[in-house]
């Protein structure tokens, strides 16, 4: 099953149950009592997931490691490499 089919499958199952619940094809006092929240359930879930996604992405963006040390180390090694390669006879452009 492709990832797309998995999503379609889960969505179909979810909306079948949801449709049955709001159209009254399934009868239960609980369903009548909770009709409004159930009606807005898909929207609520989408909003909640959106908030979750935005906060996770922003958190990860702000905590994305800045590899300052790696950059400094690389610059040092570049100098070392250029000096060593020159001594081995490689013609390099000026620094």
């Amino acid at each position, binding site marked *: 099953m492709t990832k797309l089919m998995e999503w379609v499958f889960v969505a179909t199952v979810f909306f079948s149950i949801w449709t049955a619940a709001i159209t009254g094809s399934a009868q239960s006092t609980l369903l009548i009592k909770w009709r409004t929240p159930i009606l807005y359930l898909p929207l609520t879930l989408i909003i909640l997931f959106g908030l979750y996604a935005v906060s996770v992405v922003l958190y990860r963006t702000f905590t*994305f490691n800045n*590899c300052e040390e790696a950059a400094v180390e690389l610059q040092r090694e*570049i100098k070392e*490499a250029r000096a060593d390669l020159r001594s081995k006879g490689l013609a390099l452009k000026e620094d």
Partner: protein
Amino acid sequence: MSGEGSTNEELKKLTKNDKYSILLPTYNERDNLPIIIWLIVKYMEKSQCAYEVIVIDDGSPDGTLEVAKELQKIYGEDKILLRPREKKLGLGTAYIHGIKHASGNFIVIMDADLSHHPKFIPKMIELQRYLDLDIVSGTRYIGDGGVYGWDFRRKLISRGANFITQLLLRPGASDLTGSFRLYKKDVLEKLIKSCVSKGYVFQMEMIIRARQFNYQIGEVPISFVDRVYGESKLGGSEIFQFVKSMLYLFATT
């Protein structure tokens, strides 16, 4: 660190039957190539693993190949192999071309622009040996991994794209678009054959196909230092390419 010496001895023992072929596809990298090769030699000699570097230059007009020939004189024809091609023909075919000439049983692929530091190769080798993994992928997104030289916009796009791909594709690896990886040779050959996309999204497809084939993937956090010489790009067309490929993989895998 006192454990450094013994770790190298252990690694040497673990890899005594192995050889690592490092593929370096280049295009206009005359400034970077000497440095990257110097760094590879430095860290591979230190790790005492058998290795070779295969430079696949796609007819760079800046004379990358001439520099590579100079480097070959310095380090020897057994260490530096030159397998140039006439013109730019894409990453996937560059790897196939390189593999054909590789004498190692493991292949390391990395960028020659100094954004990938060779010091991580021994770490990948070690992880691969301990867990007998099919692929070890460098990752910017977990542990000590990270980037240097990216502004807020670039980081946000990167994290956002990563979040969406993880959600839709569940690849089992945290860095899909990175191209610093160690592969078993036959695994890489099989993956390249099964991939259809071109360009940098090709890296993403490789990991997704690997998941399909149930290959074991491990990860090593890497620091990604954005291009020291030359321009790095992330424009509208790259983003469009990425979204297109992601949806393609979402619908077909």
